[in-house]
């Protein structure tokens, strides 16, 4: 547990979260959400939760992003907010 | 007071309930009506079989299930309940006969439904009569309200539906909105709902709360049609006449009054009411109802509507009798349940018979009808006398006792009210009789070749009329039951 790194990544996480909600394009939101998951994964390894980090790496980064992209493919990318 | 446990009260309640499946499954009308008849007779016999025991001063008790300490489904047959049960079960037989004649005479639809709900309503009536506590009473009261709803709406047209709605709104609305919370509050105060000879609320609450409870109970049982909550009754006149007869003479309104009386005596107790001086409230309310009801009746043209307002007035006599809180007054009030029942049902039977025979509903169309339907109108005359309280009929006794009671209680105003009301009664009944017999009939009556109504319609009304007269000379079972009740409640011999 290194608090400096923790702090840095936490900031990144918030930026990514806000970014993925602000982007006016659902595909972009999906991609940024993937980035958000990466950050979370890093964060959790910093906190020593390796199993959680592993799960987040495989689920958040891999599967959920792909699922988002698949859903966006079947619906539309348009969004007004 | 010794008590014995017996299943008879339950049987008396259930007998008409159990017959409903048979009614539904009957193939032909004859079978169906036979079953109804059998049930009516059986019910009457069961009730009758308990009479000697009660007259001996014993009570019959039967507990079905207990939900809470002091609040169970429990039957207790005492003299007052017996009085009411006797009236209603005997009149059911007669009404059944009359119904058969009436319904067939008019070729009404959905007769099976009619007979079924009639049977259920009677079950509930007996249930109310025999209930040993407020909960049981409330239960059967609600069942009765709901079972009579299809009867009120029998014609299924717009008018019937709106009347049905009104009926339900008044009856169920008040019972849920006022009677139920009052019941719960009193349960919370006293921890029991069992009717006692001197009530169970004594010493549990302050005067304002008791007054509030009294108010909630009196108006909560809106079937008693005390004035602000009376307007369902004229509206319910759209129902077929046997139903009106049932509503006004036997089951519904009497259940309301019975419940009020029960509550006044069994929940509050006369001592409590006396000590808090709450009787006068009842007297004021009832006097108002009596006078205003009679006055409105005077202005009605529809025969059944007139009878309805007459009923409103007459019902308040009963409550008034209790409100007097004197032994004689109580006796008079209880006796009036029976006397008014027989008188009023005669009148309704007559109205129905006229309708079956001529299709006429309004008083103004009935000029000279007595010449075509002498028996019917003769019975009408007797019924009117009974209601007015004039000697050849049983109605005399109840009015007599009420007058005595009000003298006993030093309520001279009530004496005036009673006399005035009797005068008004005479005012609205006698012109009908006069016109029927002594005026020249209109041509229309002859064009349609009006004759007496079917036998099934005429016989019952003759019977009830005769019974009304008999009561003058032999008021025994009812008078004795009433006096027994009063002596039990007040602790005095009359």
């Amino acid at each position, binding site marked *: 547990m290194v608090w400096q790194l923790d702090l840095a990544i936490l900031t990144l996480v918030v930026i990514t979260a806000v970014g993925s909600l602000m982007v006016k394009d659902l595909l972009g939101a999906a991609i940024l959400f993937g980035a958000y998951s990466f950050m979370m994964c890093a964060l959790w390894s910093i906190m020593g939760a390796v199993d959680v980090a592993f799960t987040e790496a495989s689920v958040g980064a891999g599967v959920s992003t792909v699922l988002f992209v698949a859903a966006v493919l079947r619906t539309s990318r348009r969004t007004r907010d | 007071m010794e008590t014995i446990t017996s299943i008879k009260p339950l049987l008396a309640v259930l007998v008409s309930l159990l017959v409903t499946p048979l009614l539904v499954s009957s193939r032909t009308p004859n079978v169906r009506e036979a079953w109804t008849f059998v049930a009516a007779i059986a019910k009457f016999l069961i009730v009758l079989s308990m009479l000697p025991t009660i007259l001996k001063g014993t009570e019959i008790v039967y507990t079905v299930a207990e939900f809470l300490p002091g609040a169970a489904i429990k039957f207790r047959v005492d003299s007052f309940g017996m009085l009411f049960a006797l009236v209603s079960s005997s009149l059911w037989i007669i009404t059944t006969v009359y119904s058969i004649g009436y319904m067939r005479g008019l070729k009404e639809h959905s007769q099976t439904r009619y007979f079924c709900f009639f049977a259920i309503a009677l079950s509930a009536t007996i249930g109310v009569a025999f209930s040993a506590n407020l909960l049981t009473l409330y*239960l059967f009261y609600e069942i009765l309200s709901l079972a009579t709803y299809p009867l009120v709406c029998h014609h299924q047209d717009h008018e019937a539906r709106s009347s049905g709605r009104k009926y339900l709104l008044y009856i*169920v609305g008040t019972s849920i909105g006022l009677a139920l919370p009052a019941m719960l509050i009193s349960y919370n105060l006293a921890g029991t709902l069992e009717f006692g000879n001197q009530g169970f609320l004594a010493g549990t609450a302050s005067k304002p709360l008791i007054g509030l409870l009294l108010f909630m109970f009196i108006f909560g049982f809106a079937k008693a049609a005390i004035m602000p909550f009376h307007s369902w009754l004229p509206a319910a006149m759209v129902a077929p006449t046997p139903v009106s007869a049932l509503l006004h003479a036997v089951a519904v309104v009497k259940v309301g009054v019975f419940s009020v009386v029960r509550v006044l005596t069994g929940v509050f107790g006369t001592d409590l009411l006396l000590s808090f001086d709450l009787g006068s409230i009842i007297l004021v309310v009832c006097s108002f109802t009596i006078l205003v009801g009679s006055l409105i009746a005077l202005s009605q043209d529809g025969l059944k509507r007139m009878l309805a307002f007459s009923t409103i007035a007459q019902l308040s006599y009963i409550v008034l009798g209790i409100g007097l809180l004197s032994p004689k007054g109580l006796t008079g009030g209880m006796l009036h349940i029976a006397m008014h029942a027989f008188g009023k049902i005669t009148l309704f039977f007559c109205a129905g018979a006229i309708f079956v025979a001529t299709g006429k509903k309004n008083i103004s169309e009935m000029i000279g009808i007595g010449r075509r339907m002498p028996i019917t109108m003769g019975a009408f005359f007797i019924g009117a006398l009974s209601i007015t309280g004039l000697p050849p009929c049983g109605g005399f006794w109840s009015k007599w006792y009420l007058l005595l009671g009000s003298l006993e209680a030093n309520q001279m105003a009530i004496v005036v009210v009673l006399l005035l009301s009797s005068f008004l009664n005479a005012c609205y009944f006698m012109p009908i009789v006069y016109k029927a017999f002594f005026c020249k009939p209109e041509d229309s009556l002859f064009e349609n070749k009006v004759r007496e109504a079917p036998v099934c319609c005429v016989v019952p009304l003759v019977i009830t009329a005769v019974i009304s007269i008999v009561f003058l000379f032999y008021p025994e079972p009812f008078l004795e039951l009433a006096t027994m009740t009063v002596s039990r409640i007040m602790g005095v011999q009359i």
Partner: protein
Amino acid sequence: MSQQYPALLIIVPLLSALLISITGWINKRLCFPIAVAALAVSAYSCIGLLLRVVDEGVIVYRLGGWDPPMGIAYYVDHLNALVLVVVSVVALINLIGSKKSIELEMPGKTAPFYALYVLQVTGLLGVVVTGDAFNLYVLLEITALSGYAMLAMGDDRAPLSTLNYLYIGTIGACFYLLGVGYLYIVTGSLNMVDIANILPPLYESKAVLAAFIICLVGVWLKMAFFPLHAWLPNAYTHAPSAASSLIAPLVTKVMIYVMIRLILTVFTPEFTFNILAISEPIVWLAVVAIFMGAILALAERNLKKMLTYIIVAEVGYMVGGAWLGNRLGMTGAILHIVNDALMTLCAFMVVSNVAYKLKGYAFDDLKGLFRKMPFTMGAFVVAALSMIGVPPTCGFFSKWYLISGAIQSGQYAFMVALLFSSLVNVVLFFRVIEICFYEPFSDHHGHGHDHHAEPMAEAPVSMLVPLYVVAGGLILVGIYTSDIVNYVIEFAIPKSIL
């Protein structure tokens, strides 16, 4: 074997759900018998468990053989066992009753539907039986997910309303999880009993307060307590009838159970009623909920939607009753869980029967229904009477307790609300009955008032029999109320509540 009842009642449905989804790919006809058998076993174990609990008191079942604070344990007490019986019996009856309707409404997808149905029941049973705060969350999610899937199978608008339900449901579940986290951070335990033991010195802590509020709000979201109810009416209205008649009676009731469990076991009544002193505002909220539910129901012209608003009002009953803070109110709330589950089941099974024969359940579609489906409507009348609160039916008795509780604690507003709601129920149900009874059947344009010309098109016997079992149950439960209260509920409420 009776030692393993607590495990069996969960495991058998779970395994059978898996089996169903396998057999669905092999032979579809086997699915229904498996589901029925599983639920029957589960109901049997639940009843056995209830009897055992009545005999022996609290039963502790250690999953994995670990002692409670370490492993997960079931604590089956009277409250649990009662709700378990209700859940399993309701689910079983509804499953049997809705076979035809499932086959009609979801041709080709019956097998997964049965699987989801059984999973839902598993989840609900698990939520009720578990004694671990986090385990409850997982089971809640199973319930929720299978519920979403089933609700989404309805008409055109079902997916949208289900999606809304999903958002709200997720927020609710997450709030609950958050609350458990707050508790964990100050106590270090997840076991409900263990938490309750550790909490007393921490009652002043703000974290505990926040945990309590957050848990409560989460549970309220899931149970559609008034200001948070917006998702419920649409989600239930557009759902397939078999799903709504499972979910409507059970899910909200189980959530109320969870709330009562939180109050009674986790936070203890001492904290909830004495230290917090927020019961008055919550009862007021319940009053508003009842009023709003009743009024919104009045505005509806669609039978199913009307019923959903009534559910909102009924939730108000139970929340208010539980928060009265006295024994009578709590008894009323617990009793009403049982009664309301049965009442709602009966009403929704009627709706399901109607939907089976008719196109829709808007009021205009219901004309002349008494002629057409007399038996179904007979049961409907019983359900209506119970919801109104007419004595021999069970609805009266729970109302009785609730009002008594309100009087005892001096919350007269709650009493007025209950009475008002009963009155509105009278209006609502008799309006429906009137339409079904008196309006001419709409398909016959030429006949008008000719009531005899309408054909009788009653639902099949397989749907009617369960319906009548439920209708009979409404009256039986009413008659045996005293037994339920004296032998079960009396022990379910801790002695500290007076």
